[in-house]
């Protein structure tokens, strides 16, 4: 393809090709400091190309394609090309990754203990992970948790963090401007701005961690904490996994191993500071 970029993110190497230059320029800027794959190869290919040939010039629209495609995925405007590249990488992982159990979850780590946060869109896991990543925790990923099925470890996959709507302002107040991508208004998910994880997250992107706590956060109610039984945790994580069914027995063994060995809590929180206070309390209890 005319324009191309290769990125190593945690254990996964992507090759992204584009019919236009602009999306890859934005991607290269956002992912400044990420290594190129050492072997020059890739695990997955993403293609950004016109939905129909004439849409290269005329009202350009970016179809998200690659090794794995969703047949009825809607194309994006060229102005949202960076989002298309991000969605393309997510799609390859969700449909093609069979080496690790994939959970739709954010993960952060401190003192070798990893915290998994999962919940429906809007639960605030990306925002909490982004904030914790600036306050002494290492951000491992805000979108996918990769569970190594042999060791039970979590592998970092520190992609750019996808901040939506209200979360954008929260992080702009926390972090310097050079780590942000362009603000994308009017996307299918509202306003989106991507943020590069900090230097520590990048430098330690090949360092695994042991899962220590599973958290189901829910934004918008008064602070509350409740325990979650293993059966409920298991079912919720099967729903949060993109490849649990495709992995068969190995996926079941890995997931039951995670659920049996890791405590789980559900929290309600009215604002991010409350949630972070709760997380720090949990961390101190686990360390004690």
């Amino acid at each position, binding site marked *: *393809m005319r324009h191309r970029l290769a990125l190593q993110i945690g254990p996964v*190497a992507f*090759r992204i*090709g584009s019919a236009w230059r602009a999306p890859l320029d934005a991607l290269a800027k956002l992912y400044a400091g990420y290594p190129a*794959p050492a*072997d020059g*190869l*890739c*695990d997955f*290919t993403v*293609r950004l*190309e016109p939905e129909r*040939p004439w849409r290269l010039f005329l009202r350009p629209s970016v179809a998200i*394609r*690659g*090794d*794995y495609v969703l047949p009825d995925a809607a194309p994006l405007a060229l102005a949202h090309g960076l989002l298309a590249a991000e969605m393309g990488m997510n799609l390859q992982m969700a449909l*093609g990754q*069979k*080496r690790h159990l994939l959970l739709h979850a954010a993960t952060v780590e401190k003192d070798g203990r990893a915290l998994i946060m999962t919940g429906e869109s809007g639960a605030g896991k990306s925002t909490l992970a982004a904030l914790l990543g600036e306050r002494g925790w290492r951000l491992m990923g805000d979108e996918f948790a990769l569970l190594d099925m042999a060791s039970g470890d979590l592998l970092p996959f520190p992609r750019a963090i996808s901040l939506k709507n209200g979360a954008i302002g929260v992080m702009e107040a926390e972090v310097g401007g050079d780590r942000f991508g362009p603000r994308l208004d009017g996307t299918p998910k509202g306003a989106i701005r991507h943020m590069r994880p900090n230097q520590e997250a990048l430098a330690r992107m090949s360092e695994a961690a042991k899962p220590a706590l599973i958290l189901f956060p829910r934004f918008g109610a008064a602070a509350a904490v409740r325990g979650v039984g293993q059966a409920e945790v298991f079912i919720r994580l099967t729903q949060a996994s993109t490849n649990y069914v*495709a*992995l*068969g027995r*190995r996926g079941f063994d890995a997931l039951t191993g995670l659920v049996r060995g890791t405590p789980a809590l559900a929290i309600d929180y009215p604002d991010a500071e409350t949630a972070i206070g709760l997380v720090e309390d949990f961390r101190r209890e686990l360390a004690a």
Partner: protein
Amino acid sequence: MTAARLLVRALRDPASIGSCDWAGLVSAARAEQLLASLAFRMEGMAVPPRIAALFEDARRDAAQVRTQALWEAEMARRALAPLGVPMILMKGTAFHAAGLDAAIGRSVGDLDIMVPRASLPAVEQALLEAGWEHVKDSEGYDDSYYRRWMHELPPLIHRTRDRMIDVHHTILPLTARPRPDAEALIADSMTLDNGLSILSPADMIVHAAAHLFADGDLAGGLRNLWDIDRLLREFASDAFWPLLAERARLHQLHGPVSRALRLANRLYFTPVDRAVAGRARLADRLFEARLLARNGWGQERRKALRFTFYVRSHWLRMPPLMLARHLWVKATR
């Protein structure tokens, strides 16, 4: 060398692949649904570590693909058992059920089965009662088109397992010029030790050839041709070739079967009987070019050629007046 040609060479002669465009090979193989087949062919060969790991993933995934395909076949068998009608597995699921070489790394999407045409209403009812649902609107044009002219029911999908089933009653649309002998396909099918049934070896090849060269636009055809290569290599014997020719004639598909043999030989160097394959035709080159229209980014190339084959697929499928009406309905709804 184009990526598709590299893929064909890697499948045919994996030992000949030294340093190459690995990213292009993997993308082309994924696009053609041949990654796991390639991974098995290249098992134990010296490849870069990242590619070796991808191949390892693909081989492990293939075991799960097989389990799921056979489970789906078993679910259909149980749903239809009370009817007492023959249920014959087709395509990938049949290869897996019979443990054929063609099953090694073979991906399986939908479950394809064949039943006697007279049993279709009972079969459809039994599947609906067992949890399958119509994919398309069961009132519209597509539905009535399927029921009147196609060789299969409108596709059904299982409510909880999310897997599709295609219920065939013959191997080509009723609008196509060749009229395969569906009764003979069923009469000569074979029952396996596990209680499942498959087409006879010669009919399996006739079906694969009909699917590739007498129906459809050859998209993804490298995988279908790889099936044909694997089947022919496994079944070939002095007695087999005349039998294949006889079945091809019976089903009015001698032309497509001959072409399948020639193209398999051209691309995968499949040993074939010259008497059945016939002499090379000029058009074989066009078919070869169409099958290889894939680059190292997994994109389809050669737009004009692909369009020509797309037009051909409609031409094969229906007579001109009917085609005009069909396109009119599709365009104006």
